[in-house]
């Protein structure tokens, strides 16, 4: 229902109901805004007025949060809000002509809302459907495998104002594309087994329930149960799967040992904000192995002594919300979540799902926590770290989806079993999200240590020019490096594996990534906020044919500045794709170095494009030509 069909009273009632369901607590602001928008199609000023009173927060706070996230709209964006995923893989699969086609069919311009307020079409950062693109989101629901025919059908559905619920269900079918499963993806663990194993793993030393600080102390195995579990995690040599590879055992131990002030508790947070372009393995894990992930979180709660957990699910995966909530509900019924887990008095742990709203930077753990608290997703100043001062300033662990899944298996099978898989410094398996130029894109799980070449062979890649490992913030690997291995001691990865064959222009790949970083910079610190825009301008300048060697040295200087002075990893890595491709694919850049001397970026003909658009002209008289007006030359 659109707002104009909704009376002021109806709106007020809806806002009240939603806010009340979230206890009128500003910490839930993101979820409240999301639900209001799901009903109203945007965030009308009247709703914000009302929230000020209901939540007792200033308007500036609500507008500051709403303005931060890509998926919140404080201006009407239509009943159908269509966002094309614009990762480089979507581009390679031809999303640009499809965007043009849809806009022409609907008579609108990209980025603008139609005159009748029915529809808007725009693009967004990678939506995690790279193995089945091009993809789009319509009102935050994913439609993969787009074709020209499908676009025509979608335009008809929009024009006929067919409610989204009545669109063909097969549009929304997302494939798992599991091509190679190992211990995680092939797990057939019975829910609860890992928890029982964690409990049973410890020497039984009687009930030590005297300390009721948290449920781990209430378990029959007493203090030694959780510490035995922690020992297994350490023995397993498990390292975080989000990319940085921090030792999980150390993180859990630091949180477990962090002192609690009165009224405080510990928190377990699952980072399912899988925003790195080219990564989609968490989507598949949460689809096919949700129990394993949730059980891993419960094992973590048992180990560190937490009663509350959160799954921070990226907004692009909104469609997984119902199935995940169903899994949580089933586990509550099976006594694997909630109060007195497995029948043990005091063993309490439950999980809430928090949906993101389109902000890559929230994958950074302290920004994620800010977002969980209903704030703008700005990375915090550290130290202190989340393990001591996390959610609501209380001890918190944030781990990747895959890390929790691995922790469940470690609880079940033991640390030694796990440590024997992979390499000496990288225990276990790694799930890769393979996309780009290959015959079989999808999900591949390997023990750590697999070579790039092996993955390329398995996925049916040929004439490969380069692989971008771990997304734009990772590394670009050329042919002479295909013998290198995926592991922490060689090429660490969060999971993305984008393949580019020899027909691809690596400059354009880097330019796409640079635009991504600019779009996703949170804007907090000067170097990243301005620097990513400067970098975009420089890459666009080369793209537009005004490049000279001056621009190369500028890019290199800028890179150094971003690496040394940025506030968080986003700024530190924003220049990586450019530096890597300059180093390894120099000809792609030399082609653009058209001038020996410095050239300004300004282009008179391009500056006229607005005038051409306004007048609907594109004839030769509407273009500027240097040959006619060059100095000393007669027209």
């Amino acid at each position, binding site marked *: 229902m659109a707002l104009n069909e909704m009376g002021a009273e109806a709106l007020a009632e809806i806002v009240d109901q939603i806010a009340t369901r979230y206890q009128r607590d500003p910490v839930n602001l993101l979820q409240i805004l999301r639900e209001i928008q799901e009903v109203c199609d945007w965030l009308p000023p009247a709703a914000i007025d009302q929230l000020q009173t209901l939540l007792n927060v200033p308007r500036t706070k609500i507008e500051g949060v709403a303005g931060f996230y890509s998926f919140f709209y404080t201006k009407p964006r239509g009943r159908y809000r269509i966002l094309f995923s614009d990762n480089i893989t979507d581009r390679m699969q031809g999303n640009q002509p499809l965007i043009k086609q849809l806009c022409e069919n609907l008579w609108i311009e990209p980025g603008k809302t139609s005159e009748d307020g029915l529809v808007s079409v725009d693009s967004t950062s990678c939506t995690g459907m790279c193995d089945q693109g091009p993809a789009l989101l319509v009102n935050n629901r994913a439609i993969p495998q787009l074709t020209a025919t499908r676009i025509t059908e979608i335009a008809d559905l929009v024009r006929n104002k067919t409610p989204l619920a009545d669109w063909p269900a097969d549009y929304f079918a997302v494939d798992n594309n599991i091509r190679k499963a190992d211990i995680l993806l092939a797990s057939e663990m019975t829910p609860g087994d890992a928890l029982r194993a964690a409990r049973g793993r410890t020497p039984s030393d009687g009930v030590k329930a005297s300390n009721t600080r948290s449920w781990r102390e209430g378990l029959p195995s007493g203090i030694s149960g959780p510490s035995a579990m922690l020992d297994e995690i350490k023995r397993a040599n498990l390292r975080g799967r989000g990319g940085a590879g921090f030792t999980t055992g150390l993180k859990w131990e630091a949180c477990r040992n962090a002192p609690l002030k009165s009224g405080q508790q510990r928190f377990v947070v699952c980072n399912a904000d899988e925003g790195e372009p080219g990564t989609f393995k968490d989507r598949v894990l949460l689809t096919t192995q949700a129990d394993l992930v949730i059980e891993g979180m419960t094992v973590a709660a048992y180990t560190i002594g937490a009663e509350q957990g959160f799954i921070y699910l990226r907004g692009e995966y909104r469609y997984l919300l119902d199935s995940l909530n169903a899994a949580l509900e089933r586990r509550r019924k099976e006594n694997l979540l909630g109060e007195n887990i497995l029948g043990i008095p005091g063993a309490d742990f439950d999980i809430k799902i928090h949906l993101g709203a389109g902000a890559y930077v929230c994958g950074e753990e302290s920004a994620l926590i800010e977002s969980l608290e209903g704030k703008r997703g700005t990375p915090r100043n550290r130290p202190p770290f989340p393990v001591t001062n996390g959610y609501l300033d209380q001890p918190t662990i944030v781990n990747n989806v895959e890390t929790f899944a691995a922790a469940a298996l470690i609880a079940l099978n033991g640390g030694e079993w796990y440590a024997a898989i992979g390499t000496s410094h990288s225990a276990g398996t790694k799930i890769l999200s393979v996309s780009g130029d290959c015959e079989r894109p999808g999900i591949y799980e390997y023990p750590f240590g697999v070579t790039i070449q092996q993955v390329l062979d398995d996925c049916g890649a040929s004439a490969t020019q380069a692989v971008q490992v771990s997304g734009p913030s990772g590394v670009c690997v050329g042919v002479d490096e295909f013998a290198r291995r995926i592991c922490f001691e060689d090429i660490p990865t969060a999971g993305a594996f984008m393949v580019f064959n020899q027909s691809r222009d690596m400059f354009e790949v880097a330019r796409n990534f640079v635009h991504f970083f600019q779009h996703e910079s949170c804007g*907090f610190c000067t170097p990243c906020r301005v620097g990513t825009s400067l970098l975009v301008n420089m890459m666009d300048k080369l793209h537009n044919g005004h490049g000279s060697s001056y621009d190369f040295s500028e890019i290199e200087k800028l890179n150094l500045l971003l690496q040394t002075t940025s506030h968080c990893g986003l700024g530190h890595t924003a220049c990586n794709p450019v530096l890597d491709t300059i180093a390894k694919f120099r000809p792609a850049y030399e082609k653009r170095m058209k001038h020996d001397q410095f050239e300004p970026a300004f282009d008179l003909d391009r500056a006229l494009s607005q005038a051409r658009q306004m007048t609907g002209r594109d004839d030769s008289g509407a273009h500027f030509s240097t040959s006619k007006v060059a100095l000393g030359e007669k027209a």
Partner: protein
Amino acid sequence: MSQKFSLDGQVIPFEDGETIMQAATKAGVFIPHLCYHPEFKPHGSCKLCTVKVNGRQTASCTMRASTGMVVENNTEELNGERRALTQMLFVEGNHFCPSCEKSGNCQLQATAYHLGMMSPHYDHFFPNRPVDATHPDFFIDFNRCILCSLCVRASRDVDKKNVFALSGRGIKTHLIVNAASGNLADTDFSLADKAAQVCPVGVILQKRQGFAVPIGERTYDKAPIAAQREPEMEGAPK
């Protein structure tokens, strides 16, 4: 007070919990900064105060001092980085010093002079940022905003009004005011507010006060920023 660290070779004493910036300021050493203000919780966003601690760059306004730290501050490398950051702030907004009421009292301008910034270096972004002149006593000229958030912190923490906040993201980050209309006139902002006095640049300007002190006799006309005691320190309580 026996704890000390080294700052460009000078021994700086500090007390538990003090940041490098606080200890340096107390010892009379100037570290360039824009979003830092001694009366407010440090923000760490402008990055002008970046120093090298044991060889690694970090913001000195948020980094706690610890014994034995070796800190570099006034070096060519760091000042070069600060100059580039200052240039970024200049091209990101619309800063026309000759016609700005704050010229001579502006920290951004004074910092640029201090760092020897001779040109903006980068291409200007020329953003479109309309001026808000709705309030009877104040203009807000968003063109000059450097997003330091000092007015945000002052209004929230001292005035308890939350008149200002940052919205948007990335290069679209911008200052907003607490009114559905978006106009300052519709907020409870007033002359007595702390937030009215903290803007380091020329965004929040009092009406009918233009050029009351002539150019040439202004704060940074008399002495460069590095040679001054923090003006905000002098007015600070305690």
